[in-house]
């Protein structure tokens, strides 16, 4: 018993002829259907190229339109001819002109001979497949589709809409359950001839003539009526992308195709010379009957589909520029924003970088300089400390910074003196951890003795206004960031507990707790300073309930508070 091939061809007929010759010289009869739309010159050329092969024949030609009955009709014509002319074949393999056999034909023959009664056809019910594209699952079988999807798209869509509106439903012929599956199958002679000679075939044909994409359902459905043993998978390696188009194979897929151990792959780019040269050599069979294993190729294509539909989170580039809320990750990795901490502690950034091991920057949105970690002038990805460049596009500055340092957590200081244009962006970014000590700016103002008080008052009012605005963002219902807010008064009461919480979140598996706390700045005279502000009519509400001047007696605060008490 042998295997016969049906080849459906429409373009690159020279390649199809090459493959047909390969099948034929291996002793397999071939019937070729050439789309009528391929010109007469191309067809005659192919005919002439295969003229010397007695077991290759051409069947009646139909004009084939994707998604319509014409393809199935061509397949039926070719199958009938193949069965009639070659009574000795046991299996019929449906292939296309852009298929390429990856294993010696003798291996396929042996594989099929070992499974004489088995039909290899992917056949699943519509309810169970997730891969139908275009939303027409069940409706493929219950609506009528007289128009071509690709050529007459408007009519196609309008007709579907009309039928839905009218509640039109076609009756599925009695006794069959619609099944779907890959167009490329390999059926036994008995199953195929049972399908073709079924007395009810005219009825079935009439029905499938108006089904959408019958080439993926005609044989898949009818095989269920006649086959004694269906193996629901295709022997042809063929992968479809998220739009329903098949992936192509190129020269650089040679190794991965070889290792897949599939019998036939589709579709091959016609100019992939290396693939055609490598796989159309007549190699002797290896003698071992390994099962096809396309997992590696599946992964390759699954990744490509994911890249096209989801993209890399946090990447903004020439061909990925998501609009708001479609980012799939506004930034590439988690980062921490410390608002006001630089005002409360001395050298907080140095301490933090020692404790967390991450990269800790100063005020990267600062007004005079981009305070990159370690006072660097240039940073990963060749970002610079230029304020003008940063302010030209602050959001991209931030996303670039996070993208360029993937794998290393970034922390930076923030405050109301800084560029505020990323506040909404960070607040709605799940990667952001924002910790705020409100009113901490007052402490720095207080230390700036050189400034005349008139100016100090104005500056305090300005900073308080900016911070209030920022806080209203951080308290809005749209916040996705991890936000924690303390007033300065609350915070200095017991600073290490909140800091420990933040640190635990940054590195949950930190080996040990920091033994040393950061040194707090001098609070001497701060209460008087606040009182003076109030006396001038400026109420520093964000500082919180700081003790009035008389109560101030906390010299201990100046020392390093140790963590372990």
């Amino acid at each position, binding site marked *: 018993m042998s295997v016969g091939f049906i080849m459906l061809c429409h373009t690159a007929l020279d390649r199809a002829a090459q493959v047909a010759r390969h099948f034929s010289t291996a002793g397999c009869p071939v019937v070729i259907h050439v789309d009528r739309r391929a010109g007469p010159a191309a067809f005659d050329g192919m005919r002439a190229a295969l003229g010397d092969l007695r077991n290759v024949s051409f069947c009646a030609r139909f004009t084939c339109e994707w998604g319509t009955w014409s393809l199935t009709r061509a397949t039926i014509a070719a199958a009938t001819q193949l069965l009639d002319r070659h009574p000795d074949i046991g299996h019929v393999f449906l292939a296309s002109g852009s298929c390429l056999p990856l294993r010696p034909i003798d291996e396929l023959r042996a594989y099929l001979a070992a499974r004489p009664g088995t039909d290899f056809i992917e056949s699943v019910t519509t309810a169970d497949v997730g891969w139908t594209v275009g939303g027409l699952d069940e409706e493929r079988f219950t609506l009528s589709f007289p128009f071509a999807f690709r050529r007459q798209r408007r009519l196609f869509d309008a007709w579907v809409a009309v039928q839905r509106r009218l509640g039109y439903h076609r009756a599925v012929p009695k006794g069959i359950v619609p099944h779907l599956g890959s167009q490329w199958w390999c059926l036994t002679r008995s199953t195929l001839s049972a399908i073709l000679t079924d007395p009810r075939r005219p009825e079935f044909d009439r029905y499938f003539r108006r089904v959408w994409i019958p080439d993926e359902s005609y044989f898949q459905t009818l095989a269920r009526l006649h086959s004694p043993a269906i193996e629901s998978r295709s022997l042809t390696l063929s992968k479809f992308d998220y739009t329903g188009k098949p992936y192509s194979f190129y020269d650089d897929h040679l190794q991965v195709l070889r290792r897949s151990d599939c019998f036939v792959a589709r579709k091959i780019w016609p100019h992939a010379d290396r693939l055609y040269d490598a796989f159309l050599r007549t190699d002797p069979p290896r003698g071992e009957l390994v099962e096809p294993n396309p997992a590696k190729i599946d992964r390759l294509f699954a990744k490509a589909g994911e890249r096209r*539909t989801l993209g890399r989170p946090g990447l903004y580039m*020439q*061909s*990925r520029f*998501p609009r708001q809320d479609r980012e799939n990750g506004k930034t590439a990795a988690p980062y921490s924003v410390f608002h006001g901490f630089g005002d409360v502690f001395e050298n907080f950034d140095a301490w933090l970088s020692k404790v967390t091991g991450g990269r800790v920057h100063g005020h990267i949105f600062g007004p005079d300089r981009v305070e990159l970690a370690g006072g660097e002038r240039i940073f990963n*990805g060749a970002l*610079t400390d230029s304020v003008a460049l940063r302010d030209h596009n602050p959001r991209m500055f931030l996303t670039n910074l996070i993208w360029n340092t993937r794998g290393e957590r970034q922390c930076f200081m923030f405050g109301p003196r800084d560029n505020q244009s990323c506040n909404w962006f960070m607040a709605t970014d799940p990667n952001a951890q924002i910790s705020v000590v409100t009113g901490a700016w007052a402490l720095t103002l207080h230390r700036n003795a050189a400034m005349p008080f008139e100016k100090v008052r104005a500056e305090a009012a300005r900073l308080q206004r900016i911070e209030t605005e920022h806080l209203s963002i951080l308290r809005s219902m749209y916040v996705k960031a991890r936000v924690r807010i303390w007033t300065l008064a609350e915070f200095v009461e017991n600073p290490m507990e909140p800091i420990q919480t933040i640190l635990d979140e940054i590195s949950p598996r930190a080996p040990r707790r920091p033994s040393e706390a950061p040194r707090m700045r001098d609070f001497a005279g701060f209460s008087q300073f606040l009182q003076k502000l109030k006396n001038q009519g400026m109420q520093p509400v964000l500082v919180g309930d700081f003790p009035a001047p008389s109560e101030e007696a906390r010299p201990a605060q100046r020392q390093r508070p140790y963590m372990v008490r």
Partner: protein
Amino acid sequence: MGIWQRYRLRLRRRRWRVRAWYRRRELTPVRDQTAQIRADSVLLFATLRNERVRLPYFLRHYRNLGFGHFLFVDNGSTDGSLEYLSAQPDVSVWSTQQSYKAARFGMDWINGLLARYGHEHWCLTVDIDEFFVYPFCDTRPIRALTDWLDTYRIRSFSAMVLDMYPKGPVDAVPYREGQDPFEIACWFDSGNYMISQNPRFLNLWIQGGPRARTMFADAPAKAPSLNKIPLVRWHRSYAYESSTHMLLPRGLNLVFDDGGGEKASGCLLHAKFLSTLPGKVAEELVRNEHFAGGREYRAYDAQLRSNPDLWTKWSEKYINWRQLEILGLMSKGNWA
């Protein structure tokens, strides 16, 4: 976008096409081999002036990728570029002495040639110092890419300009004719690009890289644009709007996905910062035929005088397209 603005953009496109048609008479064919162009040829269009030393490697790079025919406009070269090109078997070349600036920096000439020879062909429009790389360009010829784009009915393909520079002063290592320029200028900035969208033409506006970092750090709005859409399945009704940064009709500028996914894209490796630059700058400062009063060239001049090294310790050394893909400068998209 109202009907009124759409109509104005349509008028604008008509204007560029009329200009291109009018200015075709400025071009004198020196060697016309366009009869060689086959229906499936991928074409390359470029304007040049005095680039003789770069041409051999330029042609080699693009012939290796499988480009079918080259169409050049020579704008008054005096260094033998024209003679060199006319001796090539797969090149058609036109010559003009007219003003580059008056022809909208050469775009009128190129639009004219595109309309005449590029209709329903894949056309790449580049400068002589731009080298196109795309996903899998080391294993798949340009036809693989254009065939793939055809199956998805994509008509335009983005390739951002990536400025390449040497370590040390640009003229420290002299560029030899026929040499791969990226043996010398093999460094680039990997992650300092700024993107915003142009609401009128819908294209992305990309700035950044070493030029923005060193020459326009105080005036970033004036930094050169790096977004380009050089590869287009041309139709005679299309027109390049400004250089190859954007096109009309503006739907062709939507080469990016705004739903989170990545479309496929490439890069134009820009070999400007070579030993040939100081001479070019001196010439162009006198000629004053470049964009925005030669702002860019004045900046180059200042840069070359003060601090000729663009290299930093965070510069990335070029290896191949896969590296650019991983860094997020280009993408394979759905192509596997």
